[in-house]
Structures are given as structure tokens and as C-alpha cells.
């Protein structure tokens, strides 16, 4: 059975884009299992599409956002479950020294809390910029006017830094 050109492209896209997408979705949601489900489902949809979109990265993240939004709609009851579900996916590393563990735990929680304080759009803007998206790509993916991206991004960055400083 020979591989179609699409299948080759798909495999190449999966190899580079899947790790990026799942990392981004995990930063966005704070939920490893959810990030995994959505990243996989996104690639299933890409395969079902049968041809590569002109801009695969933008296409993937747009579909992932839609799936994420669908999940969030059903989220009220999930929220308590998620908090509990996530630790199951922590690998059994050797635990760090108690002091270091405490400090890093605290910082992680502060970053998570700061992200959670941002609006969904600010969080997406900030995190996608950190994935290397250009202003133009951000405009496409988040349906923004390109000329407004710089200003909105600056606000998102400020909101994030402020939320970190104001951590409880």
C-alpha cells in the first residue's frame, strides 16, 4: 500500500505541529488530558479533510479553538473534575527537594492563575505570540483586524504581567 501525497504531508504536519498544538492547548486550558483530546481530534479532522489547507498551522489552531470552545460550553460540571483529573497525567519523576518543590509549585500556580484571569482572547493572543505567530497570523486565527493586533497584544502582555504581580 503506497502512501498518498496527502498522507505524506499529513504525517509531516503531525510530526511538527502536534507537539506545538498540544503544548499550546495545555497552556491555554491547564488540562493535559483535555489538551491531548483536542489536539488529537484536531488532527483527525485534518485527515478527514483529505487535503492540506494553505496555512496548516492557522487551520489547526482555528479548529482546536472551536473544539475547545465546545468543551468549555459543557464545562460547568467538568471544572471540578478537571482539577482532579490532571494529576493522573503527571509522570512519576523523582520528587524535587521539598523547598524547591514548594517554590516551583507556587510559581506555577501563580502563572496559571494569571493566565486564567485573562480574557480568552488575551490568553490566546499572548500564548500564540509565544508560539511564534506573526501579527498577521494572529489576526487570521483570532478574526482581528491586522492593524489592531499590536495594540491588543500589548494590552494582553500588560494584563498578564499585572495579574502576576497582583497574585494573592
Amino acid at each position: 500500500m503506497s502512501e498518498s501525497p496527502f498522507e505524506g504531508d499529513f504525517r509531516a504536519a503531525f510530526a511538527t505541529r502536534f507537539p506545538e498544538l498540544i503544548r499550546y492547548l495545555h497552556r491555554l486550558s491547564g488540562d493535559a488530558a483535555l489538551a491531548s483530546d483536542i489536539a488529537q481530534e484536531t488532527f483527525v479532522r485534518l485527515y478527514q479533510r483529505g487535503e492540506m489547507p494553505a496555512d496548516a498551522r492557522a487551520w489547526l489552531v482555528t479548529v482546536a479553538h472551536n473544539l475547545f470552545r465546545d468543551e468549555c460550553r459543557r464545562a460547568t460540571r467538568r471544572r471540578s473534575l478537571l482539577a482532579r483529573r490532571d494529576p493522573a497525567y503527571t509522570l512519576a519523576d523523582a520528587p524535587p527537594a521539598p523547598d524547591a518543590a514548594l517554590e516551583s509549585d507556587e510559581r506555577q500556580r501563580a502563572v496559571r492563575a494569571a493566565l486564567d484571569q485573562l480574557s480568552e482572547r488575551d490568553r490566546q493572543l499572548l500564548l500564540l505570540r509565544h508560539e511564534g505567530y506573526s501579527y498577521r497570523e494572529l489576526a487570521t486565527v483570532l478574526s482581528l483586524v491586522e492593524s489592531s493586533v499590536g495594540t491588543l497584544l500589548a494590552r494582553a502582555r500588560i494584563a498578564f504581567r499585572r495579574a502576576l504581580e497582583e497574585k494573592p
Partner: protein
Amino acid sequence: MMHPSTMDLQALADGEPLGARESDVLAHVRSCAECQHSIAEMRAAHERDEELLSLIDRRLPTASVNAVIARAAARRGTRGIRGAIAAGIGILIVSAAAVAAVPGSPVRAYVEHLFAHTRDSAATIPHPVTQAPIAPRETPNVGVSFPAGSRVEIVFSRAGVQGRVRVTVVDTPMVRVTNHGGTAAYRLTLHGVTIDSVGSNATFEVMLPSTVGRAIVRIDGRTVFTKNGTRIRTTGALDSTGAYVIPLGATRLPVDRDLSQNRI
């Protein structure tokens, strides 16, 4: 020339084109220490943010491209996730990745094998998978995940003396079985998964979607958990996290529970 706007400097710091203004702005910045400093600050702030964001990164579950392709292929001619599983196709493996991603690791060999196998079976045969995967020596947090059908069967083929199974009803579309500690081999079947726990002391986490109409968990031929709609019958005890905890050596008679009254 006056200093360019903060937005223009930020765009330069971000490596963005400035269109018609670009050559003027660049000419200014080249000769203005203050603007150069601002840009350096902006880049440093971005780096600091990235460092902070990377604190929450973790080693994430990985997936095989073959499993994803199999799942997509399986959905052709069926209706969504449910349709796929109703057609007798259970797919999709995840493993908590890092160890599995190490080339040459026994876990990787195991996971890849299972992926490759599910791909074949998903594409062609609506029958239980019978070929056993290579059992890994160590499986820290490895497991399977597949879309839930209306019916799910989770079978532990060999009871361990000290191990236990924790079953949690969740509101997600995927069934997940993972183990931490111990050793286990997973084999996907028509309606679920068979786990050979090889007498180990592993703890198994089972995430069972609430949408599953009928679910059954068996250990060594004994039924230890059933879900029929919202009704749960189990030998396990409900712990404070909302999981039903069942020892792998459990023998007590099932206790009735109704999820609609005892909802997590």
C-alpha cells in the same frame, strides 16, 4: 526625527514588518540609543514571559500519527466517535509521553507496536484484537484512551495481589485507562480494552464517560463494576475524590449505587 511610537518599537522587537514606515523607523533606531534600549527591554520582557509560561509546561501525553489516521479512517462512513466504536473500532492510544518518547525505550516499542496494530485492525477488521502486544518491563503511567461507545468493557485478565483499580465517572468523550507504577500490557478489544496486569501492584485509573450507557469492569473473570445508565454496581468504595476504588484482589459482593442521586 522624533522617537517612533511604542507600538512601532514593539513591532520591531517582535520582528514584524512596518510597511512604508519601516526604513525611516530603522534609520532612527540605528542612531538612537534610547530606542535601542527600549527594544532590548521589550525583547527581554518577552523572554521573561516565556520563561514563566514554560513553568507550567509539562511532559504531555503523546499520540501516534497512525492512531490518529486510523481514527479518521474509522469514522468514514460512520457517524462520529460513537459510530466508529459501534462499528467495532476502538482506537487511540496515549501514553504520558516522555518515557515513551525516548528512542529505544521498551515503553516506546510497546506503544508503537500497539499503535501499529490498532491501525490495521481499525481499518479492516471489526473483530476483537487478539494479538498480544509486547509487554514492557516498566510502564510509568502508560495507558490507552479511546472514544466511548454506548457500551464499554474493561477487563483485567490477571488479578494482582496488591494492585487496585480506581474508576471515576467523568464528563469527557474518551475512555482512559492508565497505570502508575507496576507493569501492564493493554490490548484493545471490540468494546474496550483488556489489561494484563501481570500480577503487579500497579494502580489503574479508569476514566469512564458519564455518557456510556453500559459499562463493565471485570477482574480475573469477576464483575467488580457495572454502569447501567446512571446506576452503578460495584464492589469498590467511593473515596473522597469521587473514585470507586476496587482492589485487584476484590471478592465482596456488589453494592448498589445510583449516580443520579450520588453524583460527583
